[in-house]
């Protein structure tokens, strides 16, 4: 049975397309080739990430502020480690080879 537009859209937006069997992927490709609405839909879904990334990039890229935050974090951690007092350097858990299976 031929893939419907609704099913095609679901596969694209959920990311399930990649998990499909070979023939179903072929089916999806053929569907997209025949249906311009679905092609447009797929293109739009795939452009959401880049659009959001560009939109957010400007607000996150305040390097002075970011550097200040990094300093704050490092200082905070160093202080927290010194905090407990002289026993802050309690026996480092050295061996790491044997990890229990979970």
């Amino acid at each position: 049975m031929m893939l419907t537009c609704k099913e095609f859209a679901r596969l694209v937006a959920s990311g399930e397309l990649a998990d499909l069997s070979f023939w179903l992927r072929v089916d999806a490709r053929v569907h997209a080739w025949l249906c311009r609405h679905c092609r447009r839909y797929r293109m739009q879904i795939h452009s959401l990430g880049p659009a959001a990334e560009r939109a957010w990039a400007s607000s996150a890229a305040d390097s002075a502020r970011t550097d200040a935050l990094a300093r704050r974090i490092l200082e905070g951690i160093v202080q927290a480690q010194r905090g407990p007092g002289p026993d802050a350097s309690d026996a480092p858990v050295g061996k790491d080879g044997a990890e229990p299976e979970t």
Partner: protein
Amino acid sequence: MDAAETYRAEPESEGIVEKLRCGDPEVLREVVESYMTQILRAAMGAGLDRQTAEDVTQATFVTFIEVSRRFEGRSKVRTFLFGILYKKIAEARRAGRKQERVDAIDETIESRFRLDGSWQRPPRPVDLQLYDEEIRSAIEGCLEDAPTAQRFAFVLRDVEGLSTEEICKILDVSRTNLGVMLYRIRNRLRECLENLGVRGAR
């Protein structure tokens, strides 16, 4: 089309954990420098304002150091950090937000198709050349009351480019669950930008 399937490689994290346990300040600096920007960006993408995002980022690293002794090196440092971040974001966003069982977007999606599964209202063109500021406020507005997990799934998958396996670990959900979350949030966003594209006369 396959662009969404190329994953970004994680910065080298071999041996970092072991050195962290010894409290090596250089390694500490390295971890903070390698991951901080990504963590901060994800926190903001998940809907926190800049100040709250910074606080949450800081808290994430503090917790990371605290629990790094228990970290078994099974998962990547990044997966571990994002897992901590996710819990902190959920706490920060919890106030006044109730988890809805039924997502309104489901109905919207239904309404776009006929019973036979063909398009009833086909997608209209979306103008992605709008000013970034315009897109930013549209995205913010439309994600405003989206569930935290959905937002975070979108940020991790489509902005940070993590693999579905890694995101499933971070959010502690099944593959199917993640699929449903991505399906809803991507459609929500797409609907949003579609409406914007028509309003702005370009």
